[in-house]
């Protein structure tokens, strides 16, 4: 359960100060989400194009000074998906090519999001999405999720300590019962907290507000425009040449 540590990691990395960190969050969102979409729609087996996307993301990671071990750890989130993809060669014709393509696409997509989230502090990211006219309610929900991930994470840690303090050391699957009960208790607690948070919001006159009040306005600089143009240009060229 290294979840808590993982979060501390991403915040520290995102607080860096490099060329990539300083880019306008809007161009990073458009550029990296755009790259992911282009990658996903690239035909099966267009290896040169995929290599090009990978190089772009790799270069961004290097310029942003993202620690290699950190990036690899973050990429592991795609493993369950890759395991499912690994079945393809056994069930469809030309499955190896298809499976490899899907694996590469998934990795590129995850890497793009790792670069985005590791070079943009979360409040900035929300700000960018809001300025890009993402639905305000959705931005608010994501903001809440981020905030309460930490609160609930601490609760999980406390409950684990409480279990261990009473001698719970599960070794076999049939001892997982207590874990299920922990999850149930956590669910109830979160539900109750949700109600209290709502009361606190209403108490302060909530009428459907914004999650990004008082953020300094975002201003596109030449370097932001250049970044967006370069990224889009490279990706489109790669995609076109590949086909």
């Amino acid at each position: 359960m290294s979840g808590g540590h993982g979060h501390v990691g991403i915040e520290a990395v995102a607080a860096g100060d490099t060329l990539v960190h300083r880019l306008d969050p809007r161009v990073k969102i458009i550029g990296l989400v755009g790259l992911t979409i282009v990658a996903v729609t690239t035909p099966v087996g267009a290896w040169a194009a995929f290599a090009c996307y990978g190089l772009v993301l790799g270069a961004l990671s290097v310029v942003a000074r993202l620690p290699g071990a950190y990036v690899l750890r973050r990429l592991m989130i795609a493993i369950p998906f890759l395991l499912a993809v690994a079945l393809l060669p056994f069930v469809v014709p030309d499955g190896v090519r298809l499976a490899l393509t899907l694996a590469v696409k998934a990795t590129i997509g995850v890497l793009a999001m790792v670069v985005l989230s590791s070079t943009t502090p979360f409040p900035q990211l929300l700000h960018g999405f809001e300025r890009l006219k993402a639905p305000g309610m959705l931005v608010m929900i994501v903001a809440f999720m981020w905030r309460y991930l930490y609160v609930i994470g601490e609760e999980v840690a406390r409950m684990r300590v409480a279990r261990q303090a009473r001698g719970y050391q599960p070794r076999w699957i049939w001892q997982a019962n207590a874990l299920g009960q922990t999850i149930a208790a956590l669910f109830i607690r979160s539900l109750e907290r949700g109600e209290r948070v709502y009361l606190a919001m209403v108490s302060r006159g909530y009428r459907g507000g914004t999650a990004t009040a008082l953020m300094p306005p975002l201003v596109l600089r030449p370097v932001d425009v250049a970044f967006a143009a370069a990224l889009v240009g490279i990706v489109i060229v790669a995609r076109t040449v590949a086909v």
Partner: protein
Amino acid sequence: MTTPALVCDELFFAYPDGQRALRGLSLVVQRGERVAVLGPNGAGKSTLALHLNGILEPQHGSVTVSGLRVAEKNLREIRRRVGVVFQDPDDMLFMPTVQQDVAFGPVNLGLPEAEVAERVVRALDMVGMRAYANRPPHHLSFGQRKRVAAAAVLSMDPEILVLDEPSSNLDPRSRREFGEILRGLDLTMLLITHDIPYAFQLCDRAVILDQGTLCADGDIRDVLADQALLRAHALELPAGFTLAALDR
């Protein structure tokens, strides 16, 4: 006499499960008073707090804040006038950064951005947390979060501050510092607490709430000196604590 800051008149309230939380509670608080609301668990203290800013609606009776009755059409103004600081700051701090959280109330009041920014700075200054404006709440200590939660209400420029267990879970120094902040505020205050020494330090008047109604109301010194009264409502002075020890 000027209009009282708060008038609760014959409040009755029962929860949907039938639990009768308030049974004919009446209370008048004058402007600038700091009143300790004491009482055992389940006495109706938190239910009362939720009535003061119109979260709960009395099933009988009325609440009036500076002459304005708590009712559906007045809720916006009522919630500006009455600031409730909840017990757990994590319930109150739901925004990504301290500054955005303190801005939440003023933004809901529809204030222009410059005014919001000014109020945020002022409120954070009042609790000594200005340097933390851009931090996410989970980077703060519990005591700091509590102070930000107070700022989040102070930024709405309230007339009455209602605090639910302000000293709970605070370490001794944070508890003292928070008390000093409260003492420095020129506001009408309702302190809902089990922390009797804290109440004694901060309040001049105390009421005892039990079974949904007021059982005592007077100078806090007189209320706390009445051992039989305290015992009857499951209240006790901490061991070794005497009122003389904390004489102001």
